């Protein structure tokens, strides 16, 4: 960076200097730009780190989800240029002269200011123990820290984190993700001492240890043992024991970075933090301080990003001449650490005079709930560990007297809890969506005054639930309650023939072992629909349920047998995909996209001999187009002889499991992704489901197989596999959610078994996993509870159902070409079996065929 002296003002007559470009600094710049201040004033930013602001809250995702430093950026492309902001990265401010109103940076750059905003954040506190500066000691704060930890971890097998708070557990998750034998050392008697109490700490500890992290509480670090090579070799603990470890990460809290302010004579708090008023102004009216470096007017230093953002807004408003103040913030948090849900809100530790606790603790399942209640019954706060489902209702109730006794609010559903408190009990002013500050009254109004009839409508209308999504379940309950209160009957039935949802029909079929559509319709259809032909909605939906459960309920495994043949959609009926001119296409299964040259040649020969159009699909297979119905058995005889089987491209079933070449060939691969893709495809082939299922396996975090756009996607890690679910491409793309991490082969398969069977059991017809996951009550958390923690106690059954499917699988095409009865249906005309359909015609294009364009005759007369 050129050393310049830029004390002269440019054309804009007012200069604002921001020191520090973290999340809060960036929020401040955005708030300035929103108010048009950047057009009137020159804005200069001095940033210590070598990169612009990034999402520090999600640092761990760099390890757990393979996010790149760029993915974490908080700055929209072109933001600085568009607003004429001068950003100097890698050049921290080193001195402030309040008399001459100048700031000097490390490079020597000196900038005059009219307004100075300090957003210098905090620094990690490193306890003054001997050996703390040895090779292998780190802090966990910046992307650079992370990169250094990642590099060093390559050479060691174990790591210890000093500090069992929020950040310490994040750091432990990162070390675990790097494959290290991980320890957490916490001086306090429990984990997360600030957020949770002893009971919560116990539940948390049990869950964290279940993830393979060793927890040491109530012990301090006395010394870092250093080997002859100057590298960390272990830790001496205050109880006299020695913990051998290859590296140490200090995460023992943070301290405000207030040295710039101290050095220029601004008052700071006893325990640090630049003293500011309600407008975030320091004692010097030209100087503001925001975020973690500031001591707010309520005497607290806030280490969370949400209060920092509020302070940034307040300072920007004040500078723009608008009214604004920051007097303190709600410290309610709901987060997931190492896969464990933790929430705390209000007066979590019961510091109010005369308050009482109500607790429920189940150490076996890692669940802990505590509510703090005032002497008059007012809910003051609480702590939830392991199951935070009720957070959405309890947080808005804080400050009021709940309509049911507090003990009923902490007991688990069905465990003697006579009342479940629904969101309908909340007052209208309760904030349901805290991200977008939407009250229950506003949500009710969207239904009653704006004609919203569904959660997506209400989301669009009010923005509620459109950020973190944690309130969507409550939203759904409110919308249904409001609609029902308005006399709108919400018919959740499948179609005019069934009043049940698909999920309800599934349960009926399974429980009563029903094996035919007619039996189901005649006994459980709507009144008046019994004995009819049903419709094109319920027939394939029931056929799919029967096919999924065939082996269990005793229905025929082959979809063309008996009554089942009359239920299938056309594609399933001919085991091929109908195209626009009535011809069919054929996709043989190519598991994992791996194919031998010999088989590739067979496909080429078949396509050539039958004159088929060939195209490579997006799922690493080959589609052969333009076959007539009567050609399908002939083509498949050739394919089956060569060892091919049905690819189920025609079915609502597993399609394909894509893969990258993985560890076998790729220099980056960490697992054998092709083998896993083949194993998964062969395991789930033929599985009928509410909609098609796509999958992929990537051999490393580079994700070349695009697993995160699949219904279930698998990404290799150094320790095993990460499982993602609910991804989708198509019209409404959705990135998949991480369901579980670092699974062994067996754990992965078991979890996918459960996930798929739970989806098949509960989804509506033609509902992809992405939509299902967003629609189902409780969303991803609920699905994880069910399939990972077995909260419904159905996992054994789900696994048994999948085992029955796998054992009962047979290739539909091999079975078809060996059965004259089934084969007899593959004719264009029942009265002229050897005549091809004359309406199926082709013309040449680019050396292959395409359907001949058809002239439509919509006016064909009705003859009698």
């Amino acid at each position, binding site marked *: 960076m050129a050393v310049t002296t830029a004390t002269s003002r440019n054309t804009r007559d007012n200069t604002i200097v921001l020191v520090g470009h973290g999340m809060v600094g960036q929020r401040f710049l955005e708030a300035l730009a929103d108010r048009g201040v950047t057009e009137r004033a020159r804005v200069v930013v001095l940033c210590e780190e070598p990169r612009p602001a990034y999402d520090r809250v999600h640092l761990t995702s760099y390890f757990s989800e393979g996010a790149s430093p760029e993915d974490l950026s908080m700055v929209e492309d072109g933001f600085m240029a568009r607003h004429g902001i001068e950003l100097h990265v890698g050049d921290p401010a080193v001195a402030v002269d309040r008399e001459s109103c100048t700031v000097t940076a490390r490079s020597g750059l000196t900038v005059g200011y009219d307004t100075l905003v300090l957003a210098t954040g905090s620094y990690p506190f490193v306890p003054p123990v001997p050996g703390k500066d040895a090779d292998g000691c780190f802090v966990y704060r910046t992307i650079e820290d992370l990169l250094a930890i990642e590099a060093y971890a390559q050479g060691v097998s174990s790591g210890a984190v000093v500090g069992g708070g929020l950040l310490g557990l994040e750091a432990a998750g990162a070390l675990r993700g790097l494959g290290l034998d991980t320890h957490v050392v916490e001086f306090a008697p429990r984990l997360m001492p600030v957020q949770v109490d002893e009971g919560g700490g116990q539940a948390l500890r049990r869950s964290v240890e279940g993830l393979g992290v060793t927890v040491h509480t109530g012990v301090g670090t006395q010394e870092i043992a250093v080997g002859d090579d100057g590298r960390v070799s272990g830790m001496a603990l205050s109880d006299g024991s020695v913990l051998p470890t290859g590296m140490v990460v200090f995460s023992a809290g943070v301290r405000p970075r207030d040295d710039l302010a101290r050095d220029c004579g601004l008052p700071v708090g006893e325990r640090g933090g630049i003293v500011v008023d309600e407008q975030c102004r320091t004692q010097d009216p030209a100087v503001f301080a925001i975020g973690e470096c500031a001591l707010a007017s309520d005497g607290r230093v806030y280490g969370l990003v949400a209060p920092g953002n509020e302070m940034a807004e307040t300072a920007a408003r004040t500078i723009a001449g608008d009214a604004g103040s920051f007097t303190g913030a709600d410290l309610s948090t709901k987060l997931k650490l190492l896969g464990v849900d933790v929430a705390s809100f209000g007066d979590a530790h019961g510091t109010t005079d005369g308050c009482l606790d109500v607790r429920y603790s189940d150490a076996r399942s890692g669940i802990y709930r505590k509510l703090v209640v005032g002497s008059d019954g007012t809910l003051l706060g609480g702590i939830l560990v392991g199951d935070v489902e009720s957070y959405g209702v309890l947080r808005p109730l804080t400050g009021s007297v709940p309509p049911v006794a507090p003990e009923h609010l902490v007991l688990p559903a069905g465990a003697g809890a006579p009342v479940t408190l629904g969101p309908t009990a909340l007052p209208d002013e309760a904030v349901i969506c805290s991200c977008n500050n939407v009250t229950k009254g506003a949500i009710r109004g969207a239904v009653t005054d704006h004609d919203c009839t569904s959660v997506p409508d209400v989301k669009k209308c009010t923005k509620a639930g459109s950020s973190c999504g944690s309130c969507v379940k409550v939203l759904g309950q409110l919308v249904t309650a409001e609609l029902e209160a308005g006399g709108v009957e919400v018919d959740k039935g499948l179609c005019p023939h069934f009043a049940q949802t698909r999920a309800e029909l599934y349960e009926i079929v399974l429980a009563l072992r029903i094996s035919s559509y007619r039996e189901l319709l005649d006994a459980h259809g709507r009144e008046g629909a019994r004995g009819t032909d049903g419709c094109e909605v319920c027939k394939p939906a029931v056929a799919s349920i029967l096919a999924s459960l065939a082996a269990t309920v005793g229905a025929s495994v082959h979809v063309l047998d008996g009554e089942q043949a009359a*239920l299938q959609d*056309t594609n399933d009926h001919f085991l091929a995909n109908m195209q626009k001119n009535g011809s069919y296409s054929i996709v043989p299964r190519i598991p994992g996209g791996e194919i031998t040259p010999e088989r590739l040649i067979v496909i080429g020969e078949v396509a050539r001999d039958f004159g088929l159009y060939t195209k490579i699909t997006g799922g690493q297979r080959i589609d052969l187009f333009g076959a007539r119905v009567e050609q399908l058995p002939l083509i498949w005889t050739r394919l089956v002889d060569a060892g091919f089987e049905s690819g189920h491209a025609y079915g609502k079933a597993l399609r394909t499991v894509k893969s990258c070449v993985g560890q076998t060939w790729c220099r980056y691969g960490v697992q054998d992704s092709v083998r896993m893709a083949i194993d998964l495809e062969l395991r789930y082939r033929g599985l009928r489901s509410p909609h098609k299922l796509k999958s992929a396996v990537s051999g490393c975090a580079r994700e070349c197989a695009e697993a995160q756009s699949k219904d279930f996607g698998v990404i290799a890690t150094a320790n095993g596999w990460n499982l993602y679910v609910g991804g989708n491409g198509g019209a409404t793309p959705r990135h998949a959610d991480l369901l579980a991490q670092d699974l062994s082969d067996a754990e992965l398969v078991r979890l996918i078994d459960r996930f798929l069977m739970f989806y098949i059991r509960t989804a509506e017809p033609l509902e992809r996993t992405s939509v299902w996951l967003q629609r189902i009550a409780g969303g991803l958390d609920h699905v994880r509870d069910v399939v990972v923690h077995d909260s419904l106690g159905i996992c054994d059954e789900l696994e048994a159902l999948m085992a029955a499917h796998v054992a009962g699988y047979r290739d539909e095409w091999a079975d078809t070409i060996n059965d004259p009865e089934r084969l007899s249906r593959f004719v264009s005309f029942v009265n002229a079996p050897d005549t091809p359909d004359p309406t199926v015609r082709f013309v040449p294009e680019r050396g292959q065929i395409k359907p001949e364009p058809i002239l439509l005759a919509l006016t064909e007369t009705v003859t009698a």
Partner: protein
Amino acid sequence: MTATTDLSSPATALRGTVELRTADGWLAVCSAEELLPGRGVAALLPDGRQAALFLDRSGRLYAIGNVDPFTGAGVLSHGLLGTVQDRTYVASPLLKQRFDLADGRCLDDDTVAVASYPVRVEPARA
């Protein structure tokens, strides 16, 4: 467990030859056993046109034109049958428009219809 055999009882009750009437008189198409309740078959008519024949769950026979007027493809015989307000229809497998099996009218577009044909079963001759 209900066996699947009784489900096709309406079809087995029908024995003989399925015939369809065209401008030239009755045309034998197939034997009744070849029809599966709830599904259709296609027949080629002497003038080159195509008909789709269906058997519903109650054992009633229907015949309408096989060419889907919305796409020009001969596919209606491949569609699924359904019942709406006591009328039996077939849904085109391509774009899902429904056609009344009794008269060929499209239930989703009043201006569109396909041909419909009288159909009967002639008892098998001894």
